[in-house]
């Protein structure tokens, strides 16, 4: 088999045992890798209803066929498990040296089961797996943990670790790597914490199996140079993703004060130009050709690596427009191992709830010191508020009551990324049907929608575009496991990805050959959710109520007086279901499942809920 090692590593923390397992080429071609491997493993092996923070949950770390090879931006790894915050399938990706090292140790996936008796560091190399004590770093932040590991294993080791938030089971704790990288928004860090797994260290030295290694080496080297040159010409990495902030502000899509407003005159103070001027260091993932990790000094003179999501949600969404203060909250999230999107969403929701009299406390939008205190309380699960907010926005809203769920900015329990969709129907749909809860990574339709369609339209073309983008982004990129930025940010053509895939695997795939796998992955994720929530209906695919509330419409600016409409959104959602072959609940029909080769998985699902 070329392109995959054909092996996965299964580790049981309870029994402190491990074993190598093999998979077939047919299985690999069906699920590709990354998210595909993860959802298949989790669907087959997790019993519905298990506690995501209990020993029965499993953490999957999975790479794809082009991961870790010398080609543009291939340093990503997928981390997945049953999500502690949504109760459904959860995953995320992050740049890490684990990508290359896991493959070189001989594995395309790692499955972690059980629960350790005491804090543990899992060490993996070509020949062995060791369960090592991690008491010395338990309770430490991710930066200190990373330094501790580097001091013992060298900076070249692949490292995944968690901070105090993961240890304390904050439901939106992430997994961290390489100082600045983070992934697994739906609580993958909490899953590690629940297993008392502080860190995973991987070293590997074997060659990655490739059909045409010499050709791939030349192709990858040349393309990395070309993409880097394209980035230099476009000057994209001067601001990285933060370049989008002034655009969101201009088109009324910026989250301000828990998404109450869509733009703000002071937003320029936290935009990409300000970050570019303040940048003191630039970081990137392995094999990156367009590094977007722009770091500036925070209020404590610490390096803090900012991107658009954390800038938007820890800045304007909290009423903060001092970029060094935003950098401080971002540093704290990174060190605690808190997802910056959900962290900003939760803090914004709390300030909103306090202001409306629904929650106790005295915090206000713009209260930097107050947000610092609350963030620390969340990471430590300190006190009633810290504990409540560590549960995430939806659970906190149900605790606070007073109709606060209406302005809890989440879908399926996961906080919304930094795009305010009061009047952007297609992007609202993208959040609603994202298979892990509200996340921008699946289908970022917003720029297409604003530029190339009537913004006010709820037409089928928008649903089709959401599906198209899901196939590319959440399907192909999450399965081959490669960064999508070269594609859209600087125009690196999608045709290069089947070229890499074919050179490594020896296949002859066209781009379209990825779509069945992409659709299969989305359908199986839906079945995973169905087993957990057998009574689910299409309301699960609705975005937050606040985007439909006429009293929440802007009173001035580009979209003054405009707001989404439930009935028209529902029509748009139906278009999406029709294109996908899903029923009125948003569940793939039996016919769709059989077409995608999921007849066996469908029979399993039918034990829990009927299919159409």
């Amino acid at each position: 088999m070329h392109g995959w090692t054909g092996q996965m590593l299964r580790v049981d923390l309870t029994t402190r045992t491990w074993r190598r397992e093999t998979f077939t080429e047919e299985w690999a071609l069906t699920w590709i890798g990354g998210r595909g491997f993860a959802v298949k493993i989790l669907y087959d092996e997790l019993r519905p209803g298990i506690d995501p923070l209990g020993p029965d949950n499993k953490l999957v770390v999975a790479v794809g066929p082009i991961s870790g090879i010398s080609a543009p931006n291939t340093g990503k790894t997928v981390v997945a498990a049953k999500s502690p915050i949504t109760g459904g399938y959860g995953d995320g990706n992050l740049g890490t040296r684990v990508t290359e090292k896991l493959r070189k140790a001989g594995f395309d996936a790692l499955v972690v089961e059980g629960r350790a008796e005491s804090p543990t560091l899992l060490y993996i190399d070509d020949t062995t797996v060791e369960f090592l004590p991690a008491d010395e770093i338990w309770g430490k932040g991710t930066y200190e943990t990373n330094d501790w590991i580097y001091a013992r294993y060298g900076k070249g080791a692949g490292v995944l670790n968690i901070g105090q938030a993961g240890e304390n089971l904050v439901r939106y704790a992430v997994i961290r790597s390489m100082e600045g990288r983070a992934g697994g928004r739906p609580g993958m860090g909490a899953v590690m914490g629940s297993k008392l797994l502080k860190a995973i260290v991987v070293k590997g030295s074997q060659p990655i199996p490739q059909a045409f290694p010499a050709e791939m080496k030349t192709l990858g080297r040349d393309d990395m140079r070309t993409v880097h040159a394209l980035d230099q010409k476009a000057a994209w990495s001067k601001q990285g993703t933060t370049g989008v902030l002034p655009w969101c502000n201009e088109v009324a899509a910026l989250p301000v004060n828990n998404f109450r407003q869509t733009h703000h005159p002071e937003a320029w103070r936290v935009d990409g130009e300000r970050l570019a001027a303040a940048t003191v260091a630039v970081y990137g993932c392995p094999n990156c050709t367009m590094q977007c990790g722009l770091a500036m000094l925070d209020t404590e003179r610490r390096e803090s690596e900012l991107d658009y999501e954390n800038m938007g949600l820890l800045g304007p969404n909290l009423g903060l427009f001092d970029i060094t203060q935003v950098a401080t909250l971002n540093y704290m999230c990174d060190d605690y191992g808190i997802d910056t999107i959900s962290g900003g969403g939760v803090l914004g929701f709390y300030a909103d709830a306090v202001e409306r009299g629904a929650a106790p406390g005295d915090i206000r939008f713009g209260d930097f010191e107050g947000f610092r205190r609350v963030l620390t309380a969340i990471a430590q699960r300190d006190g009633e508020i810290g504990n409540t907010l560590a549960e995430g926005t939806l659970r906190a809203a149900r605790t606070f009551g007073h109709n606060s769920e209406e302005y809890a900015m989440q879908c399926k329990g996961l906080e919304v990324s930094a795009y305010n969709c009061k009047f952007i129907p297609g992007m609202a749909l993208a959040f609603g049907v994202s298979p892990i809860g509200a996340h921008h990574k699946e289908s970022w339709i917003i720029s297409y929608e604003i530029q190339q369609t009537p913004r006010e339209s709820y037409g089928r073309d928008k649903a089709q575009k959401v599906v198209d983008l899901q196939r590319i982004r959440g399907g192909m990129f999450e399965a081959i496991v490669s960064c999508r930025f070269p594609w859209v940010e600087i125009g690196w053509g999608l045709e290069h990805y089947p070229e890499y895939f074919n050179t490594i695997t020896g296949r002859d795939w066209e781009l379209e050959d990825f779509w069945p796998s992409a659709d299969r992955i989305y359908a199986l994720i839906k079945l995973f959710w169905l087993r957990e929530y057998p009574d689910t209906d299409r309301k699960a695919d609705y975005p937050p109520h606040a985007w439909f509330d006429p009293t929440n419409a802007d009173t001035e600016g580009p979209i003054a007086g405009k707001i989404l409409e439930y009935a028209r959104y529902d029509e748009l959602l139906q278009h999406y279901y029709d294109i996908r072959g899903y029923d009125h609940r948003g569940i793939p029909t039996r016919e769709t499942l059989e077409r995608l080769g999921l007849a066996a998985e469908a029979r399993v699902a039918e034990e829990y809920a009927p299919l159409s």
Partner: protein
Amino acid sequence: MRITVKLIGGLAHRFGAGEREQEVPPGTTAGDLLAALGISDPRTVITTRNGWGIAPEEEVAEGDRILVSPPFSGG
């Protein structure tokens, strides 16, 4: 007539940052503005007018605020 043009993201580093007010003759289109900036292919950028998308062939009007962005996919 006077309009305001602002370039953001990588375009600000390539063509100059900040907002600029400028005088343009009646009948000027969004595509004309882009061409004057040195952006020959309108498909390579995202252009908005007062917060809404504008096509290259559409004419700008007195007081319009034009924002020109590189394409982006989100973080």
